[in-house]
């Protein structure tokens, strides 16, 4: 393994596992600043994780094995996704392949586990959130797959390492299809990270919850795992946005060096969106994501017309 590849692997694992909580922390921090508040430090998610890790849980009466295993399954499948998504165009296979569409499957598995757990506690608010999350996921998955398909067609493969290489350099400027894919993927990022206008991560009102709803009953280490999984989702989609859809360098060393900058910029963009855009009605969110899918489809048509 070359030095660059070793460094890329280190960034991928350390970043995905240890630095991921920093991303939602940064968004919250800047969002508070933009709204004229002082807000928590960017390290707040780590404090919360530490506090939760030390607490014991309160189990819901009558809940069984699915309820107990769901946080581990959700966090485990997101962790496998971290193994899957490379951060540079020179990175080794960590034994789980490099395929972009497998990522969609792993994200769906995490979602399934959490949604199934909400039936165990038979809590109306949890189920409300789960059913909304799964409904929106229908449109998110279509948009995600189509956006990835745009990048895959441009680079000729669904291998993520080759996709980072194939969309590097001038491709972002010379391929109009990629710009449409990026637009669609931006909306997927908003939905997967559970941010406004699709979902409001700060809500404390159960009736409006989507992603937070199924988490209501969890406490202690269970909740810590679920919060880490949510943070790692930020890492996964933001890394893909930075290294595939946004303009990036051809040299893997430059890619690695610029990644922190791009991630910080993207977190800032999320904070800005959260400040400027109000949460939309839940039933309108599928429409927004349906538009994202259409935009990505338009990207594919663009690519086809270009090649014809």
């Amino acid at each position, binding site marked *: 393994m070359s030095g660059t590849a070793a460094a890329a692997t280190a960034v991928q694992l350390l970043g995905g596992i240890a630095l991921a909580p920093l991303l939602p922390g940064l968004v919250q921090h800047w969002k508070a600043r933009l709204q004229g508040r002082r807000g928590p430090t960017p390290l707040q998610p780590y404090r919360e994780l530490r506090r939760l890790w030390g607490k014991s849980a309160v189990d819901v009466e009558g809940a069984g094995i699915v309820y107990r295993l769901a946080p581990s399954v959700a966090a485990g499948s997101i962790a496998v996704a971290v193994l899957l998504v490379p951060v540079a165009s020179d990175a080794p296979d960590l034994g*789980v*392949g490099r395929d972009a569409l497998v990522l969609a499957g792993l994200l769906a598995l995490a979602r399934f586990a959490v949604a*199934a757990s909400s039936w165990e506690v*038979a809590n109306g608010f949890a189920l409300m959130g789960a059913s909304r999350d799964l409904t929106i996921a229908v449109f998110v998955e279509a948009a995600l797959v189509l956006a990835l398909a745009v990048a895959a067609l441009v680079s000729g493969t669904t291998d993520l390492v080759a996709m980072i290489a194939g969309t590097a350099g001038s491709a972002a400027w010379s391929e109009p299809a990629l710009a449409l894919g990026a637009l669609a993927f931006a909306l997927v990022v908003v939905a997967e990270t559970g941010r406004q206008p699709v979902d409001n991560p700060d809500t404390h009102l159960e009736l409006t919850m989507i992603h937070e709803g199924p988490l209501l009953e969890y406490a*202690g280490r269970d909740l810590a795992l679920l919060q880490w999984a949510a943070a790692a989702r930020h890492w996964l989609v933001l890394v893909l946005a930075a290294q595939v859809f946004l303009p990036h360098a051809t040299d893997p060393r430059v890619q690695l060096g610029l990644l922190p900058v791009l991630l910080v910029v993207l977190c800032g963009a999320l904070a800005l969106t959260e400040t400027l855009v109000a949460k939309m009605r839940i039933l309108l969110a599928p429409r927004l994501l349906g538009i994202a899918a259409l935009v990505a489809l338009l990207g594919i048509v663009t690519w086809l017309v270009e090649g014809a």
Partner: protein
Amino acid sequence: MSVAGSVLVGAAAVGAGGLLTLLHRTFVAGLALQAVGCVLLAFGGLWALVADETAGLAFTSAFDPRVGVDALSGLFLGILGAVGVAALVFATRYLEPSGKGRTIGALTGLFVLVQALVLVARDPLTFLLAWEAMTLVPAAVILVSRADEPARRSVFFYVALTHLAGAGTWVAILLLASEGAIGDPSVIASGSGVQIAIALAALVGMGAKAGVMPLHVWLPLAHPIAPAHVSALMSGVMIKIAIYGLVRVLVEWLGVLPEWLGVLVLALGALSSVAGVVYALFQHELKRLLAFHSIENIGIIVLGLGACLLLRARGADAWAAFALAAALLHTVNHALFKSLLFLGAGSFERAAGSLELDRLGGLLRRMPWTGGAFFVGAVAIAGLPPLNGFASEWTTLQSLLHVPAYGGVADGTAAAIALAALAATAALAALCFVKVVGLVLLGPARRDAVAHAEEAPGAMRAGVAALAGGCVLLGLAPGLLFGSLVGLAPWSAEAPTTVGLDLPGTGDFRSGGVALALAALVGALALVRGRRVAARAPTWACGQLVERQLDWTSAGFTKPLRLVLEDVLRPEREVAVRTEGGVVTEVAYEGRVPHHFEERLYRPVTALAMYGAHHARRVQGGRLGVYVAYLLGLVLVVLAAAKLGVLG
């Protein structure tokens, strides 16, 4: 023992077992012998597939009864045998040795035999006769098991539709026979009228039998009312045999088809998969829901076939073979998990007395074996890693993604739309099966009868557990089968040899690695999470008491989607509030999502047919003299025509 010997002895064992099943004393032994016969059928079939061996005679276009086995027949014999074993072992305890049970047991054997006969038929006559028998035997089973009015209506609808549309199969096969093209792809010219005619006829006839929309309406009527093990065979195998027919005709015998036909097949597949799962979501009875899911999965298989035809038309032979293998892999996978789910539903019905989704609950705790296997099947059908449903959906997605890479603008766009449809289908299936496992297996029991449900007897558990094992195995190592399936393409294609799915142009789905990493990480996290519990507490519902009246229902969980799709689905709801002296005493709610295909497409056609029949009845006076007059008139017309030279 050779392939031929294994299949012949297996068929004989199924037949002899069927006869023994008729006797009260040898009832269980007869079913067991049938199961042994199915093992032999599966063994012979899979041997033919893996070793790429042929046995018996080759295909002929002559009306000369003959049988034989090749690799493609072998694959489907393998599916038939594998599902047959599980269903028959399940049936040893599911059926009772009463007169009715014995007849159903024997008919099950006959059902297996006629399906095997379709697969080994090597001439048009045997094929068509076995094809028709395959439709009629399950109708007989349903009528033996229950003869009430709705069941008879459903069976009538099933037989009528599969026979009317089934004419397409006859047209396709007889046209192929008259061209001498059965078993010989070089006869029919690409793009010729007869090629198109055969392809369209096969799509109508075999598509109806497979349950492809819009010719699917018989399926959700017939499948749920059959006994569980026959439902498993119908959904798991019978509709797959129609896929076998489609692969034979469209992929093997017709040569390269024009692109627009591939696009048509893609459109049918996308419609079936999305609409199938959407209607499944709004079903509140488990077996009916599962029947709609069969339509969805047939749609996914047809998407793979469509991608295969398009890639073949574009000369991308390697990916065309992968697309065919993806469709066939999903065929195998769906056979495994759908029969598992139908058998599990049979056990639940036995234990809990009902399959109304809102009246079950908590069965995972009461029936850990059946419930656990059912859970595996639900995760598999939802298309989630690391189980088998994901492997075949991933390969189908990849095949669709590779169509634009080789295709023109029109077919590339069609494939991209199909890609989005398949992604949405997978997410909808996940939504649907979260609902199913939640309402059936998890949470509190919703009725007292469910709270006292007892685990199914050993044989019934063994049937579902074996199928769940198959789902796990093909999820861990889909490459074991995938390589052989690629070899089934009639053009030469290089088959991958890994246990995962390392395909060129993809980032490789290393199924084993993903499963191992998942198991290790989930296990480790569950360990560090520990079992420390400070206390047990009731569910927090914002201060409300959590009572049974507040339990979420099937309709409630799918409401967000129903609202999102309101313009398409046009749900009907009725709320009746009764007040007495200004106090609300009763609120009645009724809601349903109408099945538009039935109400908008079939009802007008049926009404027109009934109207026509009503008027045609006037001709049928019932008096002998009138009929003699008709005959006389006919003879005169024929004579006149002969005189004028119209008849040649």
